């Protein structure tokens, strides 16, 4: 390693480094961590604390000069007894559960197929990955075009495949279909995400385990259930964790695709939150809702991570 060091010594000394040269490791550690922590305190934790404070008030951001009154837990009580909020929670649960279910089935299936390492699998994998890198908002916006009855690509593709009239159904405008259209677009976007994580799981299984199973004449079906699935399980659970957090917070894609409509059939939690905070300007109420949502995600994620660690240890 001395050659590397010699080469570096030959370079001009860094003035900052010289001045700070005799700092202890402990000082450097704190010096290095402080900027990130300060930034997060200022832009994440301080707003969070402020949200907590606002959640106990009747504050309205569009009337900054109105008298601020502390209302105790009233906002929380109103939220938990508000049927609209429960409706939004149901819509969110429906969206989260079904989108993850679809992504798991499709993503795991694709990963199993890609893991057979056919010729060109790497190229096609990259193609499949593209949707998940795009901006969800812009994706939501152009899917409104693709899902238009009559002129949209989707309706016409369905028409070609099944023979129904392309103007006979509306994916976004129909109360029954709209919840499925946000699930479908989410699955289109995020199936590759689950696929990529599953693929890593499949590749982590050493070949000799399958070879041993082969010696024992275990059927492929048996091999899948007792080797592949248990070994991929921690990866699957990780994928579920990340997707669940992301989809619980889902705002951009749904806001552009259906903006909660028709009526409030696709009004997921974040859309309700935006309406309360930035359309009705009920800042105190929406702050309480934000806290409830955050505690839900945070609590659920913590419990889940514990379960994940148990699966990993097995």
């Amino acid at each position, binding site marked *: 390693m001395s050659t590397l060091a010699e080469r*570096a010594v030959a370079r001009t000394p860094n003035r900052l480094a010289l001045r700070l040269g005799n700092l202890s490791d402990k000082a450097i550690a704190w010096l290095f961590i402080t900027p990130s922590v300060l930034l997060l305190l200022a832009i994440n934790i301080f707003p969070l604390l402020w949200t907590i404070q606002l959640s106990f008030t009747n504050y309205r*951001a569009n009337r900054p000069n109105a008298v601020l009154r502390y209302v105790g837990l009233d906002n929380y009580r109103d939220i938990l007894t508000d049927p609209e909020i429960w409706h939004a929670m149901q819509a969110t649960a429906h969206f989260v559960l079904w989108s993850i279910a679809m992504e798991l089935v499709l993503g795991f299936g694709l990963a199993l197929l890609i893991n057979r390492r056919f010729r060109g699998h790497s190229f096609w994998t990259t193609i499949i990955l593209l949707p998940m890198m795009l901006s969800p908002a812009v994706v939501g916006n152009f899917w409104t075009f693709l899902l238009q009855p009559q002129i949209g690509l989707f309706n016409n593709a369905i028409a070609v495949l099944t023979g129904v009239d392309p103007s006979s159904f509306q994916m976004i405008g129909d109360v029954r279909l709209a919840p499925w259209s946000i699930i479908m677009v989410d699955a289109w976007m995020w199936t590759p995400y689950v696929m990529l*994580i599953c693929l*890593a799981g499949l590749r982590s299984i050493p070949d000799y385990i399958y070879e041993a199973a082969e010696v024992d004449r275990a059927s492929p079906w048996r091999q899948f259930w007792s080797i592949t699935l248990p070994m991929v399980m921690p990866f699957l659970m990780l994928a579920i964790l990340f997707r669940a957090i992301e989809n619980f917070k889902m705002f951009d894609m749904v806001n552009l695709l259906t903006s909660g409509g028709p009526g409030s059939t696709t009004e997921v939690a*974040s859309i309700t939150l935006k309406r309360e905070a930035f359309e009705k300007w009920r800042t105190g109420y929406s702050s309480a809702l934000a806290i409830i949502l955050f505690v839900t995600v945070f609590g659920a994620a913590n419990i889940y991570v514990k379960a994940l660690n148990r699966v990993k240890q097995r």
Partner: protein
Amino acid sequence: MNLSVTAHSVAEPTARSKRIASFVVVIYALVTILPLVWIFLTGFKTPPDSIAYPPKILFEPSVEGYVNLFTTRSRQTPEFLESLPPPQTWYERLVRSRNMVIGGPSKVVPRFANSMIIAFGSTFLAVCFGTIAAYAFSRFRVPLADDLLFFILSTRMMPPIAVAVPIYLMFRNLGLTDTKLGMILLYTAVNVSLAVWLLKGFMDEIPREYEEAAMVDGYSRLRAFFKVVLPQATTGIAATAIFCLIFAWNEYAFAVLLTSGEAQTMPPFIPFIIGEGGQDWPAVAAATTLFFIPILLFTILLRRHLLRGITFGAVRK
């Protein structure tokens, strides 16, 4: 070893199963890419062609969508158009053929520039902060390190709308509403958690012996960091930077709530590219295409580190 004569050793799938797999995967890939191809094609349709029924697969390509994207136009009476001097450029001629005249450039160029400035500015800061913090977490025994790292990660679990209210109030008090500086700071804070987690993984992979050897040779800790560790971490830093860039480039929720003009980025702008009677789809498709191209290039560049980036470094390959 009689294993090698087994007809279908699982280590190497049979030719038939490979064929079936490749067939299904290629079909899926083609279906999944179709919406993107359609958007790309729509960018080269005329407005009537873009909303034709049945949808046109074969059409005469036109750059009208791109012209409409970059200009504002107004419809005029034939008498007024007669009175004008003949059009000077090809795009004026194109607009004139629709009985319109160009009013001036549209806002797409400043919006695109905002996206670039905000994405690059916040990425630069997030990567700088993230690199040093990751080094500290990787090399030193920081008290409560796990708690701090978890705290850094947990800031990502908040729905953006949940913190948008106080950030909106904070920005209003500080005069940061609708400024590029405000957006850069905000995106830096969001990205720094990703940067710390990813870079810690990359730093952990650099053997400590490198910098220890340099320190034995009389380097201070800081010089060893700048001259030995940083050059080794270049790949990781570059991959992290691209992930931060993509996040800031794609972000919508904060952008739509906290910007309206001066600092507006592309994602909130694209849905409001309006023609006569609703969204001007060829222009929207053109904007979408231009907006996606950098991401497509980055995805190909990142292919090897993608998994690590999307799982916060939890899965490495």
